[in-house]
């Protein structure tokens, strides 16, 4: 690091301000794009790992001709007999359209007397012992409880059943899951109410949740269940999680392609701009060479200019992207990632410190920028000083 050359780079940049401001703006925009996509993915990935906590080791659903249908609970008896299966139970959950908020609530029926396999539900039951004394009850995520209280100003909620009747449930408590999505949309209720709200007839369930004693055996057991019931779709927790993760990687991958094209364009533009030296720049370099600057001194000056521009762009882009993603909740981008197709419950992107994403963004933008000025910088450093000084 040569302090003198760094200072000179600053002065020289001030003289050619417009050239650098242009690059600075484009580079900042590129970094904001890259940061935002990465931050949204990181946040959604964290969110999905919190939700995954509620997944059973193996889920068995009915699938005929690509349609999801209800599965009959009688199959539990066959599944539970398989060696290695610790426990199997019917699961009742589904979406309930809450028109007022234009959002869906996730209704989950749970049996407070049974063992809960999800940590979030376990805590919910633990913290709300009073549900045991109620016949019908509901517990909501904290965010949702606040919303309902604000709208209706009472501790109860009326659900309309598919047959048109209403069923009112007292809100006996709240729970605070790590997942923001659950907090904003989950309604835990007793099994009977859940079945009525979601229109599930007796003897049927949405899926059969299977828990195994030994994670090593999960895959084998899943294969056995699939062989036993060819009309079902059998998925392990791992596969479901991978599928979600892949989905995020794929969406961000599409952005990466867009990003790559922009990066390439950026490379070409900077390369082109840096290559074309005007008379003044040519003369400046010639003067430097005449007073004893070596080619590496001149390249060093260029390198400092690049570094200053890149670091300023970085310092600008990081807070802007943070604000866009966590402050504004990434309007537009978030919808692309979680899908416009049907209305998901609204939720806040959980904050995760994106150290890796910051490093990756740095590693993809700065080297490309540096690469685009190397050859022009070298060309400048070997210009014929004698000719420019005539």
């Amino acid at each position, binding site marked *: 690091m040569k302090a003198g050359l760094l200072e000179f780079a600053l002065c020289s940049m001030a003289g050619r301000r417009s050239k650098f401001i242009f690059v600075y703006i484009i580079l900042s925009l590129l970094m904001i794009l890259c940061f935002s996509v990465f931050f949204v993915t990181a946040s959604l990935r964290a969110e999905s790992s919190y939700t995954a906590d509620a997944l059973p080791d193996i889920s068995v659903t009915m699938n005929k001709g690509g349609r999801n249908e209800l599965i009959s609970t009688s199959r539990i008896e066959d599944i539970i007999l398989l060696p290695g299966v610790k426990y199997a139970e019917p699961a009742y959950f589904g979406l309930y359209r809450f028109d007022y908020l234009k959002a869906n609530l996730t209704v989950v029926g749970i049996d407070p007397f049974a063992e809960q396999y999800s940590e979030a539900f376990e805590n919910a039951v633990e913290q709300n012992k009073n549900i045991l004394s109620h016949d019908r009850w509901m517990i909501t995520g904290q965010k949702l409880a606040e919303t309902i209280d604000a709208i209706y100003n009472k501790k109860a909620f009326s659900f309309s059943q598919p047959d048109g009747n209403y069923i009112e449930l007292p809100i006996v408590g709240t729970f605070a899951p790590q997942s923001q999505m659950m907090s904003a949309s989950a309604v835990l209720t007793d099994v009977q109410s859940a079945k009525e709200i979601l229109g599930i007839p007796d003897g049927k369930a949405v899926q059969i949740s299977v828990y195994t004693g030994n994670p090593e055996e999960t895959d084998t057991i899943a294969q056995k269940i699939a062989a036993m019931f060819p009309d079902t779709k059998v998925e392990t927790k791992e596969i479901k999680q991978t599928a979600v993760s*892949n989905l995020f990687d*794929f969406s961000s*991958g599409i952005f*990466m392609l867009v990003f790559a094209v922009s990066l390439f364009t950026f490379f070409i533009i900077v390369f082109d701009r840096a290559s074309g030296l005007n008379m003044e720049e040519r003369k400046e370099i010639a003067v430097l060479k005449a007073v004893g600057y070596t080619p590496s001194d001149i390249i060093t000056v260029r390198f400092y200019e690049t570094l200053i521009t890149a670091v300023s762009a970085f310092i600008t882009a990081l807070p802007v992207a943070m604000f866009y993603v966590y402050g504004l909740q990434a309007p537009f981008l978030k919808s692309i990632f979680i899908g416009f197709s049907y209305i998901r419950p609204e939720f806040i992107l959980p904050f995760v410190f994106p150290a890796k994403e910051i490093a*990756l963004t740095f*590693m993809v933008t700065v080297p*490309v920028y540096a690469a685009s000025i190397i050859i022009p910088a070298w060309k400048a450093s*070997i210009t014929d000083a004698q000719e420019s000084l005539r």
Partner: protein
Amino acid sequence: MSFLIPDIFVQLVLYSVMIFFLCISLFVGIRVILHWDISDTSETQYVLEKHTYLVSVLMKYIFAVNIPAFIIFIYANDKLSAYLTGAMCAAGVLNATIYGKYLMGLKIINLYLSAAWLTVNSFDLKNEALPFTYTKFSIIPLFFATFIAEAVLFVLHFASIDPTVPVSCCNVIFADNTSIFRTFISDNAIYLFAGSFALTVLNYSRPVIYGAANILLAVSGIAVLIYKVSPYVYELPTHQCPFCILQSGYGYVGYAFYITLFTGTALGISAGFQKLISGIAPKKMFFYSMLFNIAYLLLCAWFPLSYFFRNKTWL
């Protein structure tokens, strides 16, 4: 598909830039091999001289980018282990395809190769007769070939990872004692490491031998890390793995191990090499090489010793 995962994608971008630069270097390299003549005063020779200077800048760039790219590479493999059944860390992923091992090997070789090139280069540029320009440019086609091979293996490796096929991981790969050579190394890792370390210390003032001893130190340093030190990091006698230490569960301490070992030995080897070709021993490089090697030694000793003081027993 996996090429769209950001970590891998970033590497592809960096590879494209580096290959672009290497093509330019190769082009210049061939012209140097054919036409270089320092005593010639013609304009062509003068232009060629200017181009050799460009190549040395490009090679510096490639070296500077290759180091973080290497870290991203390990990190990406480590992350992919979550998608592969049976893989717990990068070892499982690297072992998941037939290309993984060779890719890893080539990456290390290329890092050392570019470090060596830059060393020759810095020597060449210190003498106004540019005595090593021809030598350093005759290495360029070789480096180009190994680097392209690395890039091809990179693409093949990530293209052929199949998430549905279960793989074996470090506990199987590194505990494999069917090879006599490997068993010998794992049994004697401490002696080999101590031996090479002693060799470097004893030959501190004999630059060329010191450089050569650093090659031994690099190899035995990795061996001792895998077979003797890593179990203490994991606090599990059966867990021998050079990659799991890179995970967050162990505070990313692996990066400290590798950075000190690479810096120390690369400096040592380069310094020895410089002495060999130019007769001048760069004092500072020896000093820093020794400093980093000692840091590595202390780092290696720290985990077993602290385990011993806490549990009053060895693993």
